[in-house]
């Protein structure tokens, strides 16, 4: 058992009178993979963004490595995001003015660490089969290549927590399988991987699965329906 690196406690989220998430409590350990599943509109992406401190919960708490995020200033939360999280979005979200290698280096630029990790960025892109695409801009890359660049960007600073929103969406089965392998590799190195997915194959590779229905956790670990503990 790894240590609890990310924990949500009774997370509640409303938009006006509409409830998006209700009392979600999940514990994620280092070196494990959690899959969040559920139909469209069930609140998966909202939960993921609250876990990644990208938006605030209406109520409840997110603990990152034991630190209560809500107690921190915006600057402190930014530092936490920088230090703990690697993010993979539904769309690759690469900056079109930058080349593939530059996109990978963006987190390092923001953390003022680029000199130390240039070689690592190159190695990551090479590992993902993009050695000859490093200096191409996003508009010159295929969807699969964009996803791999985004994955390299998320992994560059070896974050303890990796959040991935539908990482295999729109990919062909071979590429989807590779992405799953790479995420599993990250878990093997000790990262906690949290994946929002519709893909049963992806969910099957997770250590834990939570299922959301209309903002409520109705299934956890594929075993304990109604249990609000995903860890």
């Amino acid at each position, binding site marked *: 058992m790894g240590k609890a690196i990310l924990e949500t406690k009774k997370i509640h989220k409303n938009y006006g009178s509409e409830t998006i998430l209700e009392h979600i409590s999940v514990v994620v350990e280092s070196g494990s993979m959690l899959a969040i599943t559920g139909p469209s509109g069930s609140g998966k992406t909202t939960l993921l*963004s609250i876990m990644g401190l990208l*938006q605030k919960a209406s109520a409840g708490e997110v603990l990152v490595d034991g630190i209560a995020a809500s107690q921190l200033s915006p600057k402190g939360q930014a530092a936490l*995001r920088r230090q703990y999280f690697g993010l993979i979005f539904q769309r690759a979200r690469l900056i079109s003015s930058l080349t593939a290698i530059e996109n990978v280096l963006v987190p390092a630029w923001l953390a003022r660490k680029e000199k130390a990790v240039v070689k690592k960025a190159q190695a990551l892109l090479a590992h993902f089969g993009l050695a000859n695409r490093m200096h191409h801009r996003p508009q010159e890359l295929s969807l699969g290549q964009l996803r791999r660049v985004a994955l390299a960007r998320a992994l560059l600073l070896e974050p303890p927590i990796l959040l991935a929103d539908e990482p295999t969406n729109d990919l062909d089965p071979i590429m989807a399988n590779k992405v799953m392998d790479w995420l599993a590799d990250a878990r093997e190195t000790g990262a906690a991987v949290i994946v929002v997915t519709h893909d049963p194959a992806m969910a099957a590779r997770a250590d834990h699965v939570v299922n959301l229905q209309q903002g409520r956790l109705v299934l956890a670990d594929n075993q304990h329906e109604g249990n609000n503990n995903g860890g």
Partner: protein
Amino acid sequence: MFAIIWKSINHRKVASLIMLFTMAVGVAIVITVSLLYRGVSVGLETSKERLGADLVVVPGDVSMEPGLLFGGAPVNSYLSKDIVDAIRKIPHVQQATPQFFTHTLTSDCCDVGEEIRLVGYDPSSDWIISPWLKTIQKGNLADDEIIVGPKVPDVLGDQLRVLGKSFRVVSNLEYSGTSLDYSILVNLDEARRLAANSKPLGQTWQKVGEPKNLVSTVLIKLDPSADIAAISSEIQRLGYCKVIVASEVKQRISDQFTALLVLLGGIGLLTVIVSLLQLFSRFYTLTLERQAEWGLYLAIGATTRDVAALVIGEALVVILGGVAAGGVLTLPLYEGTLSVLQTYQSFPYIAPGFGYMVSTIFAVTLLYLGLGALAAWLPAYQGSHVEPTSVMTRGEFD
């Protein structure tokens, strides 16, 4: 960080270049107007000090008043020397001193090769040149001595040939922005002798009489309480002459230039405003277009300050580029405008010194940076306060 800024500017090359060019034009106009204004102001002030006369009497056929006062144009037009004594007798005339002008003409290989005005002054009555000579420990000029203006060419060592005769240059005048810059000063009698002996000018003397009986102009100093208009009328009754009221000419030129510079300044100001509005509009539009991008930066750990720095940094880089390009553009614009103005109007002009130019460029740079930062502030504020989650909810990046 700078890499992100630079890549973003480079990515929007055409928009950046258009903005940079607009700024460059604004900066060049502002600096040019400032330099011209300074040059004319100092020129007018200096000429006022140097001329030191209230009235200038010239022959009636001389029409270029400002040119006579401030230009370098050589004039061969004369009055009888009797007018000097007649003027001295008019009440409230404090002092009157004659000057004799002619222009040099190339008469042999070693002469001054351009038309330079030769000014003969009268040491016995002059109150402008003689006191200045005393300040440089020099008495009146001997017959073979001259003083040259700073724009007189071909001065080799301390010798200069004028109308076939060698002269020793005893001093150089300081730059004044007036006709004195193109003048060679000799004593009155020597100027008349040189003119009389000049073969190319022989036909002139046959028409107007012997140089020894002629003067070109009379400079007059009045009592402070004198009625300038009444004295001008009285002088005009003495013969075919024209009285130039120095202060009026200067005022007229000053007014004309003020109007012109206000116009140019207005254009410059409009260009500045347009370029700043363009800057604001660009960054404001970018705020809307680039929310997802800025959301991404925030999502992966940038602080709001980092994002604001990216927006303002991008604005400042464009502004600095615009100011630098404007500095380069200033040179031809300044030279061209000055040249056009001098073609249509004679006026005293002293080019601003290096220090003034540097401080003007520095001030304009600061002004642009300040206003540019202000224009980018709102977009920077809005950009840095987007929700990090917008990276997941907004459209594609540009």
